[in-house]
């Protein structure tokens, strides 16, 4: 005779918030320790930060004494100095011009991210956009006052150095990559030497070279100004890295594509510009994005040779004796600007990687 055994308790929930917490936070002793440790770190860092940045912070103080008395962050300092930090020494009443220039450059970057524009029209957009930026910044025509480029500064200058840097390094980098893949030993050696030399030294040494050595290289009575020299250094630097990125794309194209182009009787130029490069460049768009982020961040190094980019104009704002000792606030503000740009671009490139990786999905 058998009796029904006692009914078991229902299985523990495998969905719902409690199960999630159990699974993701307390699944094992080690996991529990890690959770407790992380909670402790968050509790130790977050409340004091919020207290400093928001609760005790002063947003409206008109003097630094008033600000200091609040005991928290002094955002009023940013309110006082944001024009200087964002636009540098550009003439005060003309600052709408760098503002529009910055908007044009940001628009150019955004347009470049739209897949529909990935054709020859992008080239025209960039040439046109960069020309508009140059006219706005320099002026001298259309009734705009001429502004020397020693007075440029702030965010527009950072954007100029990085967008012009990448845009002008592009053709140069592609030529270098093709040269490195070439079968002609002399051309290959020259390209390898250039790429490896540049990649082996820090950007600072290139900037120093541009500021102290370049004037010696030029014939007497002929000089180019500091900003242009720094821009040349950034272009030369970016081109070497760009060449390596493009080379990666060239190597990823199957040999059959090269042979197919050859068997159709295409010349080298036709083969590259119609068959190989369009495919290779499409592959390397995500690493190109990372390179652009890297160049954007690296332009901050021009501080060291005294060019008024976003970093340097911030440092200048910090030297005002009436507002001493608010570096942390200023640096947090500038970090936020850099972060918005770089994070946006990196999110975009991650997104793109997923979208372009159609071949590997199963």
């Amino acid at each position: 005779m058998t009796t029904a055994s006692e009914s078991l308790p229902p299985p523990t929930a495998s969905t719902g918030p409690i199960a999630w917490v159990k699974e993701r936070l307390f699944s094992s002793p080690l996991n529990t320790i890690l959770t407790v440790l992380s909670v402790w770190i968050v509790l130790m860092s977050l409340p004091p930060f919020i207290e400093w940045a928001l609760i005790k912070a002063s947003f409206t103080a008109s003097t630094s004494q008033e600000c200091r008395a609040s005991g928290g962050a002094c955002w009023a300092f940013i309110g006082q100095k944001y024009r200087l930090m964002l636009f540098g020494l550009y003439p005060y009443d003309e600052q709408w011009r760098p503002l529009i220039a910055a908007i044009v450059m940001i628009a150019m970057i955004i347009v470049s991210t739209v897949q529909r524009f990935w054709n020859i029209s992008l080239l025209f957009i960039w040439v046109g956009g960069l020309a508009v930026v140059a006219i706005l910044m320099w002026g001298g025509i259309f009734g705009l006052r001429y502004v020397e480029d020693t007075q440029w500064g702030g965010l527009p200058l950072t954007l100029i150095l990085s967008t012009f840097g990448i845009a002008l390094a592009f053709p140069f980098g592609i030529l270098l990559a093709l040269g490195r893949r070439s079968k002609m030993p002399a051309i290959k050696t020259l390209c390898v030497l250039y790429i490896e030399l540049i990649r082996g030294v820090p950007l600072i040494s290139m900037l120093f070279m541009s500021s102290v050595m370049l004037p010696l290289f030029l014939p007497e009575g002929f000089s180019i100004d500091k900003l242009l020299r720094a821009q040349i250094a950034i272009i030369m630097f970016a081109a070497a890295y760009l060449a390596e990125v493009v080379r990666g794309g060239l190597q990823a194209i199957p040999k059959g594509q090269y042979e197919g182009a050859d068997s159709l009787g295409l010349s080298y130029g036709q083969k590259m510009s119609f068959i190989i490069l369009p495919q290779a460049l499409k592959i390397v768009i995500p690493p190109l994005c990372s390179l652009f982020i890297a160049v954007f961040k690296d332009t901050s190094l021009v501080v060291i040779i005294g060019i008024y980019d976003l970093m340097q104009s911030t440092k200048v704002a910090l030297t005002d004796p009436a507002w001493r000792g608010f570096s942390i606030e200023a640096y947090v503000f500038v970090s936020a600007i850099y972060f918005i740009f770089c994070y946006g671009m990196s999110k975009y490139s991650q997104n793109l990687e997923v979208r372009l990786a159609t071949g590997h999905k199963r």
Partner: protein
Amino acid sequence: MADPRVNGGQSAPPRRLSWNDPDVRSVVYQVVAVALVGIVGWFLVSNTLHNLSTRNISTGFDFLSRESGFAIGESPIAFGPENTYARAILVGILNTIRIAVIGVILATILGTIIGIARLSKNWLVAKIAMIYVEVIRNVPLLLQLFFWYALITETLPGPRQAINVMPGVFMSNRGIKVPAPTEHFAFDLAAIGFMLAFVLIFIMVNLAKKRQDATGKAFPVYRGGLALLIGMPLLGWLIGGAPWELDVPKLQGFNFVGGATLTPEFAALLFGLVLYTAGFIAEVVRSGIQAVNYGQWEAASALGLSRSQTLRLIVLPQSLRVIIPPMTSQYLNLTKNSSLAVAIGYPDIVSIANTTLNQTGQAIEGIMIIMAVYLSISLSISLFMNWYNKHIALVER
């Protein structure tokens, strides 16, 4: 080429120079390219020589043996204003190597921990690691260096109100003070023991491998290595008489005496470089571990290996192959990024060469020294990592 049926048994006709011959074109292109580079180079060199002669700047490296006349804030070897420029440059090189070596070691440890944390099943840990990586990687390193430097010099109190973090460790706006071992023979012995441990580990690993190949018996290499690393310095310290005294920093007047100092410059640079590079290394480690097929984990557990054995013997060796090349470039980046020291005043090679070229006017020589130093450091790191990469690369049939 010389098919007898085509040419009726005779040798091929002499080649005519033609633009349609790819070999001819290739030679012409190369000659033109080399000539162009040569002309540009000659143009630049002749301009430079002319400019130098009109400005009365002498070329050459004679200035290196002259007295430098400047002092250097921190130096691993004795240095004063009476020493030569050559010695100043040497100090710079040593300072660069010092920050690079310490930075690479710390960044690798921190980066690996964060990389693994990003893959953790623990939601909170994974999120904190992700926020860290995103914030650090998207803010310029220079800005981070300025930030740490300002944090140390502006927000920390003066030496008299220094924050006592741990017994003997003081943080103030003059830097971080830590206890240091006093000058004693035993500590030198311990250092020698530490270095000797590496040699012994190398021998032990080879012997263990031979024994395993011959008998199939495994030797606890990792535990043995750890024991050697701890035991050998301890042995040296014991032989030296096991001294206990540490040189603890003490407040005297307005500043600390004794102990070792992390200057604000060094601390900010090290902090910045390590935290920044760790963010990138974390991504390298994460992608390396993710690159190993999940089937490898399953196959290993089917063979009855424990989880730690699987990680050590199956997954890590395979992910290392993916990790090594990008890790190399991160090490190179850290070394090159240490040149940003010039912005916060740590006397690395760039900052000293910069002072030198400002004082002497020898711009070309100064920049050549900087570039030569970085090129040789970069090349040695790449050579070593390439050797290591070949060592662990997949050997196919």
